């Protein structure tokens, strides 16, 4: 059930600089929980205390926007973690 997670630049301090990591889970919530097991603290940067995606974060499975943490993830899918950037 492994999927690929592509990590936004501001979150790579959690993944030792890796742009892409693997995670397992049948839905977004499970994938993020697995991600947090391996990269402690990364989930909280994206999801708030009320299990809502933070407003400066976007998640996409392949190219579909994630609107619910219960959205299904299939083996071979790619979860993209996208952060607002401010540099100019």
């Amino acid at each position: 059930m492994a999927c690929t997670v592509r990590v936004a630049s501001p979150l790579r301090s959690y993944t030792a600089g890796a742009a892409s990591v693997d995670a397992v889970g049948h839905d977004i919530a499970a994938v993020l929980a697995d991600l947090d097991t391996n990269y402690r603290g990364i989930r909280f940067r994206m999801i708030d205390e009320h299990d809502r995606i933070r407003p400066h974060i976007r998640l996409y499975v392949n190219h579909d926007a994630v609107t619910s943490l219960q959205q299904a993830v299939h083996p071979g899918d790619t979860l993209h973690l996208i952060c607002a950037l401010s540099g100019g």
Partner: protein
Amino acid sequence: MAMTATEKQRYARHLSLAEIGAAGQSRLKNSKVVVIGAGGLGSPSALYLAAAGVGKLALVDYDVVDLSNLQRQVLFTNADVAQSKVAAAAKRLAALNPDIEVVAHDLQLTADNILDTLREYDVVIDGTDRVSTRYLINDACVILGKPLVSAAIHRFEGQALTYLPERGPCYRCLFPNAKDGQVPNCADAGVLGVLPGVMGSIQATEAIKLILGIGELLTGRLLTYDALTTRFDEFTVARRTDCAVCGEHPTILTPQDAVPKSKTTAAQRALISHSTPRQLQLRLGSAAESTTPILLVDVREPHEFERGHLAGCVNVPIGELAARMDELVASLSGSSRGRSSRPDVVFVCRSGGRSLQACEMAVGARLTAVPINLDGGLLAWARDVDPEFVVAPV
């Protein structure tokens, strides 16, 4: 108006393109574009727009050229260091193409001046380096009905999105709300010098296509570029019906300053005191005997704080500072008990930028008489005081 012989020669490669030709070149000549931020993104954008023959090209910035800018801000040379950015840029662009009009707006955009500044232009290009300014520009463009080409960069990653009024999502549809402290900038995190060259060129391309009415724009599509893996991706972005500025029931009807900085007067900013790492070390060493206690406030994000912080520091991320000002006031009251005076408040962050912003907020909120900024931040502390100190990446 017919093109001169010089113009025909200058724009020969455009005139050869069926998609541009003489009619398109004339459209470019009659167009007005404003580039906000004469930095990494604004440099290539402005250079290519000037070269392309955009008739009126304006630049907005209030900064001066720093030597550290030259690694990526290709508008400038060594001779421009310490000069006004927009003045130096205007000179460079006029030298590149003397047939166009270049306008230098040497000012900081605020809610009070942004509508008047942007009103006359056909296309707005956002190359700023602060997320609160991005929202200010986005909101102004939605209110004015102006197309906006946004891009942003961080380390090796870039993003771009084009807003077309009434026809696509705006920046707030993409990211409804972000605070300056949540979104690191290049000063804190660093950036590959050539990255803004790629993204700024994409912005110029979008503006030119928009003026010419050709091709497909990045409307409703977020383009991302990872320079480390040489990978472009794009993601669909839909308009949000609940968007605060372009949604069905907008709550933002006029531009708003999100950052208290813009409301801080020069006189108030003069109240901020500055400390080098060594001065702070001496002050902390003598804190027990001092009649004026000291409160250290680290305004970095929690994950940075956890990796290493100064002893006795309170962690209040910059994005939460305004909301938690009362908590700090209570801390000050508590820690001044038994002492003759209220504590001095020293703000610290990674490189000194976020902490300076915190000082300005503290002045505005009258938190303390004289907030102190640790200049150079913890990176300077590690360099000058404690080489073992771990400064977490952003």
